[in-house]
């Protein structure tokens, strides 16, 4: 029993190694193969896929839009998420439980259904526009989806709970005495918030932003449904290339470029945040 204990973990490890590590390794290898017309690929090594992925101005524009949407969604989520997190961290007992239910229940509904909810709200003949028209505020209505705005709204909605939980966790870890100590030393409530609470919540902000950015640049359903194929992002392009054009090496190279680009963004971000958080870690 004791000697065979590793058997417990063996199935899980096998699952992840065979169906996760190996496929991604395969994807990396695939990105160096040659696209073919009769089969999805031809096993001849080439750098051509990367040349296409990096040289093509259309692909650049798509990548740029993907990263831009990632940054915008992250900033918007942070700005909406911080007040929610602050409110949640200070609640207690039943109120807190109720707020958690409200916050987390959207996570239990699939992304397709939630996107559909936004479609009902944002469509040209949707609820928001019908309200705007009837009230006479905007007789022509607004174009609220099948554009970047719609994608942004859907994205922020889906990832907001992650940001809130991440920041609330950091806020709850701040000893309640710390802002009080600042008050006892003559800081106003506002000053205590900006000088003590905000800096100490940065680790949560950091983690939340990272998560939202990574999730946004790789999201697929929302750009398709709320962008209506008018907002092409790299994940869409990857799937199109792989499934519709059956160019696997090309799709693999695009995926690798997206990973590399988001890693680069994350790298810049991490070094910036590390400077801001120098007393907090370790």
């Amino acid at each position, binding site marked *: 029993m004791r000697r065979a204990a590793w058997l417990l973990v063996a199935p899980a490890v096998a699952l992840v190694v065979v169906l996760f590590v190996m496929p991604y390794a395969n994807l990396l290898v695939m990105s160096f193969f040659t696209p073919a017309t009769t089969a999805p690929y031809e096993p001849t090594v080439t750098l051509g896929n990367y040349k296409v992925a990096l040289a093509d101005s259309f692909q650049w524009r798509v990548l740029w839009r993907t990263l831009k949407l990632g940054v915008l969604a992250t900033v918007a989520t942070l700005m909406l998420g911080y007040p929610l997190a602050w*409110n949640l961290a200070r609640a207690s007992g039943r109120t807190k439980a109720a707020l958690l239910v409200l*916050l987390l229940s959207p996570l239990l509904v699939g992304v397709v*259904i939630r996107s559909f909810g936004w479609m009902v709200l944002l469509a040209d003949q949707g609820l928001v526009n019908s309200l705007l028209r009837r009230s006479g505020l905007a007789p022509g209505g607004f174009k609220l989806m099948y554009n970047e705005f719609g994608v942004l709204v859907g994205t922020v909605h889906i990832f907001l709970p992650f940001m809130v939980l991440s920041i609330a966790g950091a806020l709850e870890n701040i000893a309640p005495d710390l802002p009080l100590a600042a008050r006892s030393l003559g800081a106003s409530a506002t000053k205590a918030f900006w000088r003590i609470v905000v800096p100490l919540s940065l680790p949560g902000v950091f983690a939340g932003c990272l998560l939202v950015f990574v999730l946004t640049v790789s999201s697929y359903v929302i750009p398709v449904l709320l962008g209506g194929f008018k907002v092409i992002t790299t994940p869409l392009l990857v799937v199109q290339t792989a499934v519709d054009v059956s160019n696997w090496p090309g799709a693999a190279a695009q995926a690798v470029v997206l990973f590399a680009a988001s890693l680069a963004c994350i790298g810049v971000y991490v070094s910036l945040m590390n400077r801001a958080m120098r007393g907090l870690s370790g």
Partner: protein
Amino acid sequence: MTRSKLAHGAFLLLIVALYVFLIAPIVIVVLASLNSGRFLVFPPEGFSLQWYVKFVNSRAFMRSFMFSLKLAALTTVIASVIGTAAALYVVRRARQSTTLRLLLVAPLQLPGIMTALALLIFYYAVGLGGTTYLGLLLGHVLVCMPYAFLTVSAVLYNFDRSLEEAARSLGAGAWRTFARITLPLIKGGVLSGAVFAFITSFDQFPISLLLGGVGTTPLPVQVFDYLRFSFDPTAAAVGTLNIVITLIVVIVTERLVGLESLYWGGQR
């Protein structure tokens, strides 16, 4: 004093608005499914169950619905067993091994759509073919197992091992100790992991999109295909049904182990 009260009121208003934003699309889906018109407009056009009738009469939707339920059930069982076993080993025998822990939750770290693509190409490379039931099931197990692993681990970290030692000192063998002491005490973690796994599988989209085949289309993909080209409130009926099933699962779990354990992995 009045100024700070005003600021406080404005802040509370903002919080309420944000929660409305969070809940709105879900409430809207339910409302749209009961609306008689094609579009939900203001004022509402009237109450109707026609979209539900349309759903039940749609062979494609019903087939996908049943298929998704069965797939999620099977995925949950496999993922829970594998994930629980792995958690037992990692927490008890390899507490220090960060590598092992990171490896087991890695499927949650990379985007599902990329994992799906990698799997599609990989299946083809090993000769499993692109879209088989086995391939789809394994893909689902892959992205659901980490939830079971994480929730059970969370419970096991707080598990007082002297309880097991007490059972052993009273003459219970290793298996009996596991069955009578350990399992009942980590039940909350196992169940909440299973709920997460079930919901993740039932709502799973990217894996299903690329690995689901003809006749084996899970429900979210069926809805997605529908919405891609048309705006049909039948999707709202499906969505409402989906929400109801999720609610039932959550409520049943709550009755069994308490809702907190869903969020905290049975830690509190």
